[in-house]
């Protein structure tokens, strides 16, 4: 299994949509074959269309607010006393997280295909919030599927979704989290694919959704590359890119432009959700060596029992609380291009405390996982090492959890 150079990773799958011959694919009911094929044709055409790219870039710049900041965390760097710690503040983006890129592109595609309704899943509520924003912007009706447990713990985003006139459909089946929301959203699409477009909220699902999402979030690394060159004159000799990994959309987007660099120069570190320190449950299939299985239309490493039933996950972070992982990351793991590890709930909370103590930055619980590992590893690194953490979401949505776990001071 090998990565190819000079070909975007999203286009390295085989004709059945498998990366490395075994990750991804299209394990979908027959009814979805046609809409998926239609979407593939449309996307393959448009991603080569200069006018479409210009349109995308215009929305990214004027509406989303590209580029997001790239800042040095001076105080934190000084406090840690190792590598230089920087952050790409993707939470600057309109709506407060990276999910806006994928949502915008899906709405642009939906418009082109003549669909009037768009449906999407959400865990932390960001994918739903952004899809509702984009749908409103582009005049599409919007339905958001969200686990009942997530609705409870991510209220600020739920309110935002409703404010954008989108319908929030609570999902009560299974663990009542992201995995069930994605299933229910796919079911809705099965029944309504003639009138409705579907947006999968991360680099998961049937291959076309992995590709569209990866293509969209790659905006993050396109910006970062320019910013690094502006700041350092060239891509630093020792660059380490830390990102949390749930489905894997922000991390893939954060790394994509650096794919062809040698990993000795530019290392990718993905941080999964290890769950509560005392619990056996986690959302870290790559770190803990989960077996390959099929979830939501794609072959991937996934938490499951011996029989093949998908296992329930547990994490303080709704956005990382997913038993599977993008086929792209499975491929990056097996080719050893990226390294994956996990942070526990407690470690993420401690990182949040530390970052907010030293910096004017409030990473949500998802990037707090990445900060945790970045801080720990930075201590042992030389001063000329450039550590960049993608702060891909803002903690406003987590205020209820932060209040409960850390007290008023941290909200």
């Amino acid at each position: 299994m090998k990565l190819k150079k000079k070909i975007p990773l999203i286009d390295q799958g085989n004709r059945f949509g498998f990366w490395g011959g075994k990750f991804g694919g299209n394990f979908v009911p027959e009814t979805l074959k046609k809409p998926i094929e239609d979407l593939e044709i449309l996307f393959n055409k448009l991603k080569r269309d200069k006018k479409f790219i210009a349109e995308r870039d215009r929305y990214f710049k004027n509406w989303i607010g590209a580029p997001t900041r790239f800042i040095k965390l001076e105080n934190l760097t000084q406090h840690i006393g190792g590598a230089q710690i920087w952050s790409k503040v993707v939470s600057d983006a309109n709506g407060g997280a990276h999910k806006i890129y994928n949502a915008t592109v899906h709405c642009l595609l939906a418009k082109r295909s003549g669909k009037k309704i768009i449906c999407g899943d959400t865990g932390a509520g960001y994918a739903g919030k952004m899809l509702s924003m984009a749908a409103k912007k582009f005049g599409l009706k919007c339905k958001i599927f969200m686990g009942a447990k997530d609705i409870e713990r991510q209220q600020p985003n739920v309110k935002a979704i409703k404010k954008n006139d989108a319908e929030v459909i609570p999902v009560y089946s299974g663990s009542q989290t992201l995995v069930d929301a994605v299933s229910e959203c796919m079911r809705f699409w099965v029944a309504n694919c003639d009138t409705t477009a579907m947006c999968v909220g991360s680099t998961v699902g049937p291959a076309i959704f992995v590709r569209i999402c990866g293509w969209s979030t790659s905006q993050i690394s396109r910006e970062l590359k320019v910013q690094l060159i502006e700041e350092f004159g060239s891509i630093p000799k020792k660059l380490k890119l830390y990102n949390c990994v749930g489905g894997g959309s922000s991390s893939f987007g954060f790394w994509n432009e650096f794919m062809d660099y040698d990993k000795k120069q530019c290392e990718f570190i993905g941080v999964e959700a290890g769950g509560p320190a005392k619990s056996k449950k986690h959302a870290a299939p790559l770190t803990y060596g989960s077996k390959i299985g099929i979830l939501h239309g794609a072959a991937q490493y996934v938490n499951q029992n011996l029989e093949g039933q998908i296992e329930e996950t547990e994490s303080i972070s709704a956005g990382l609380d997913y038993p599977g992982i993008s086929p792209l990351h499975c491929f990056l793991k097996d080719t050893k291009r990226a390294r994956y590890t996990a942070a526990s709930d407690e470690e993420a909370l401690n990182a949040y405390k530390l970052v907010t103590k030293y910096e004017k930055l409030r990473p949500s619980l998802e990037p707090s996982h990445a900060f945790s590992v970045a801080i720990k590893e930075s201590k042992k690194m030389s001063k000329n090492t450039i550590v960049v953490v993608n702060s891909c979401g803002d903690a406003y949505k987590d205020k209820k959890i932060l209040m409960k776990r850390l007290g008023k001071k941290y909200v």
Partner: protein
Amino acid sequence: MFNPIDLAFQKAKKENRPALLTYTVAGDSSKNQSLIILNAISKYADILELGVPHNTPVADGSQIQTSSYRAIKNGIKMEDIFWIVKKYKKNKNSKPIILMGYYNMIFQYGERKFLEKCKKVGVSGLIVVDLPWPENKSFTKKCKKKSIYLIQLLSPTTSKERLNKIIKDSHAMNYFISMLSTTGGKLKVSPRKIMSNYLKIKKINPKKNVVIGFGITEKSIKSLKKADGLVVGSAICKEISVSIQKSQNPVTNVANLVKKLKNKIL
């Protein structure tokens, strides 16, 4: 290849009616009870589909989901499902069994081992909801070697060209999904429209049996009786759920329902 599924269709044709196919979830509400239900409905149904419950079923509506979660909660395992089939096939009035489920369950069990086991216990056909054509080509061949039918699903969204190719590669039975829906949806298309789509499929290869499923209930079954076979699933799963709720015996209630369904198509 010889397959008892063909005989079931022949028998129904002789009686000038469509074959009646039922769907129940293995292990719903328990291992033993699902076996008893199969035995009880054998008298009326021609082919029995037995669902392999999975906990992230992307094509199933709420009724089958409820049945599946109930079976999983009660601890049903793959080996139990094979046990149910094996026991059932000892019944001298047994009908052909089709296992229906999602690919991950087969993938984890191992394709080869799974098919060997199916053959051994007497499974006649398989429906793998999320392994469509052409991805299922190699699995289809493996099934054929064991004389097990892999039943291809066809949908209103399947293009003409694709229909031709799928039917060419298919075994002697195919399954037409009546409308854009998960299982158990309300019939939102007129029976006339469904039958006209069905006939288009039938024309491609009249020798291959085509059954219609999704949204078929006691109310609608009669209007589709020109088909080779009709599948009722969610309505039966619902009957089990309702019986449990009312503390009634699911076995008698389900048997009565299947009997009524049969009478509608005679």
